[in-house]
């Protein structure tokens, strides 16, 4: 049963890259938000101590 099955091969690699890139983008965005929130929280903490 030698067949090219190109559609399935392309689908497999496409699914792989969609999952990897989607997760990568999610991590980068979530990381940026998390760091911004951390810096805001620390700034707020500092202001509270000074007041």
């Amino acid at each position, binding site marked *: 049963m030698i067949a090219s099955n190109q559609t*399935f091969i392309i689908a497999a690699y496409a699914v792989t890259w969609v999952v990897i890139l989607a997760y990568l983008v999610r991590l980068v965005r979530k990381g940026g938000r998390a760091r911004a929130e951390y810096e805001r929280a620390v700034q707020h903490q500092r202001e509270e101590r000074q007041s």
Partner: protein
Amino acid sequence: MPASTPSNDPGPAPPPRTSLWLGLVSVSALVAAQTHAILTSPPDADMGHLQKIMYVHVPAAWMTFISFFVVLVFSVRYLWRRRENDDLLAASAAEVGATFNGLTLMLGMIWGRPAWGVWWAWDARLTSTLVLFLIFVGYLALRAFVDDTDQRARWSAAVGVIGAINVPIVYMSVTWWRTLHQPPSSPATLDAAYTLGLRLNAIALLLVLIYFIRKRYEIARLERATEHAAEAVAMGGS
């Protein structure tokens, strides 16, 4: 910088940024490894070019196993030492592992349709892999719904250990039971024409895995440090 602020309870230090270079290098390595495998591997005698799906499906399954092994190690460490960072690292590996587990299932279905004539069969390998996926989806749901940090860490460590115990069952399922799924593919069981491609793709995906877990762990620590800072303000104001 927060480290210079005098305080009785400074909370956990912010984690260092995970290098974007590691992400770029790992993704580039994966592109190179896949290109090499696609261009150089000959068609298989039985499956023809469909064999090329192996270079993404098998490494994805291995990364699932490695992630859940990390969950096991750091869950046990958390239960033993009760250190928060062990819990956060286990949770980070669980999320990344569940992602690779889902990918493995999808790739298996794409391979199964032309190879077996069906998208899905309730055989031992496929079913045990699905059970593994559902356990770790449950692990992540549990973490999302339990607010108390100690309780969340203890319960998820227990689920993480139980889930990881399923990994050897998944791996051995094709040996222990008669399955539609073929025996495990590894450099030891493959023709020499395919081993280099499989090794390169596994190493490249391992770099991606390391980047993902490090980045997710960095985020988890940042979120926890933010909670600590907010708690410190609330305590000071009360």
